[in-house]
């Protein structure tokens, strides 16, 4: 049993993480869609392996669900929406090398902090191994979040979201699989969300800041912090493009 875990579970989990880093390093939309498909297929395969190791048929059903709904249907939905125009095929204005470096620093720091502070004490189903295995879903989760945050195209953000969901499936597989009916509902929910998102893709390929979606300027915010409440005053539009504004969330 332990040999099987060492031979298969850890390497497959590592490949899932490699696929996540591959997605982060990609600028091309089609490659990202394929990368997502490979990641989901690996997750499905891992489910079969754990099912075999645990002699639990629920994992086999889960594996089939992952392969059919995520690796196939989600990929099909996204692939259909990839724009045919050459200009849209890759994401411009993204410094892949720089974001990849920032990504590595943030994800590694976040995972190690959270693992050592929280998850180290959680005990697993004995056959799976030690709690260090949680590093895989945690890294995948933060990787998905970072992909959403660091990219501006609708495709990249959808794939980031699917990656986040894959991380939760992986987490549940290692910890304690939740009832299949709930897992299946979650899969269908994610599929529906991808369908809805693919409708938005047609209308809006990339996302930038918009003046109408900004409520206040950073100078207003600073005035506010200094308790000089002066209501209903506006400032030049240029002053609304501030990093502080992004932090403030409005």
């Amino acid at each position, binding site marked *: 049993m332990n040999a099987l875990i060492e031979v298969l579970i850890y390497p497959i989990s590592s490949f899932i993480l490699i696929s996540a880093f591959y997605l982060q390093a990609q600028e091309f939309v089609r490659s990202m869609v394929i990368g997502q498909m490979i990641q989901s297929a690996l997750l499905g395969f891992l489910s079969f392996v754990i099912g075999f190791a645990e002699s639990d048929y629920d994992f086999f059903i889960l594996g089939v669900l992952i392969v059919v709904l995520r690796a196939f249907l989600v990929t099909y939905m996204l692939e259909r929406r990839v724009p045919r125009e050459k200009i849209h095929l890759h994401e411009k204005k993204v410094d892949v090398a720089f974001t990849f470096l920032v990504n590595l620093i943030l994800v590694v720091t976040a995972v190690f902090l959270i693992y050592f502070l929280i998850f180290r004490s959680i005990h697993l189903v004995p056959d799976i191994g030690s709690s260090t295995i949680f590093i895989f879903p945690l890294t995948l989760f933060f990787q998905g979040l970072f992909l959403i945050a660091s990219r501006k195209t609708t495709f990249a953000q959808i794939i980031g979201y699917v990656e986040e969901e894959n991380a939760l499936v992986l987490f549940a597989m290692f910890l304690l699989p939740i009832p299949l009916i709930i897992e299946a509902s979650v899969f269908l929910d994610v599929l529906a*969300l991808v369908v809805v998102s693919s409708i938005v893709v047609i209308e809006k390929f990339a996302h930038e800041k918009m003046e109408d979606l900004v409520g206040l300027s950073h100078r207003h915010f600073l005035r506010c912090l200094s308790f000089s409440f002066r209501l*209903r005053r506006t400032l030049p539009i240029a002053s609304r493009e501030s990093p502080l504004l992004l932090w403030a969330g409005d």
Partner: protein
Amino acid sequence: MAVAGLMYFGPDLSGIFYIDFTTWVFVIMVASVHFLSVTYATKYFHGTDLGIRENTFYLLMSLFTTSMFFSLEINNFGLMWVGIEATTISSSLLLIAEKTETSLEATWRYLVLVSAGVTFAFLSIILIFYSLGTLDVSSIISHGPEASPVLALAVTIALMGFGTKVGIFPVHTWLPDAHSESPAPVSAMFSGVLLPTALYVLYRVYEIDPLTPLYLWAGVVSIAAASIFLGYQTRYKRMFAYSTMENMNLALIGFAIGGTAGITGALLLLISHSFAKAGAFYTSGSIFKASGLKKISEIKGLWKSMPASSASLLMSSLAVTGAPPFGTFFGEFLIFYGLLSMHYYFPLAIIAFFLVTAFIAVNHNVSGMLFDGESSYSEPGKVMPFLGILSSAIPVLIGLVFVVVYLETL
């Protein structure tokens, strides 16, 4: 409504559904605001070129409401999560009904931010199942609160996860965009019932292992942030969106402190707020329909040109800021009483300060729109202003009923 009625008054069918008095209050809220919003939408979209077919709009509204009922009534934390995610899916297309560039961007922000946040909440569902071996709401709640590090982690993650949909700072950023760019009946549904539904689910998770100080301070910080942002808004719908954030967090505090005062106060605040905020957004819709303007500074002299809408805007803005005799006032009063009785003096002082700030900010802006200058707008028909007045007047009725019931119990 039928299922909730049957469950609450009829035989015990708690295997599939879990409905207690709190659920019943939420179900009434959702059903009432849905009815008002659909009625309002029939007039609001009249003669408007929609991005989706009108039939599809009403189908999506029904799906949206059904998913909220599902989240409220289902007896399983995992399926509650599914219901909350389903509300995002069904409501996102409602947001782009008017198909403007800004509404598309707001829809996308809503989809990505809320889905990413709610996904985080699924982690807490996994941890609850890991700890307790079941996700049945009835059996977990009947077992009573249980303290363990894993459950504390689950309840903390739920605060950030479901909190994204409730409007807790700093994961609230989708809220003003979605509220301001969606059509008025959809904004009313978002503000009046969607956020309370998410709050209900968060409250159910909170009951498992009540981390009162964490939830209390999350609420306090969010109220402070909402009040600060609210005062500096230049668009009236965004201003009302931040007011929703403030009210939701006050209700969260009510649930967090618990007891008769806290829970009753939170429920009274939520039900009054749902009608008041629906009224505020219906009136905003009428004003936008008449003027085509979104900025507070551009709207003047409504009192003379649109008297019915002005009356509903005034009433609703007073109601959402907790003025007496609206039900929101009594809700806030009970929550304050609960905080006092539990000796939370410092949080109480902070909340009171920022509630006063929000009260001044909202009513100052609204009074400017109503009484400053002159305009030549006209009411968009009779039904839309009537629904605005009706929704804004219901919180007065709720407040008066509460006073009568309260005096009778003395």
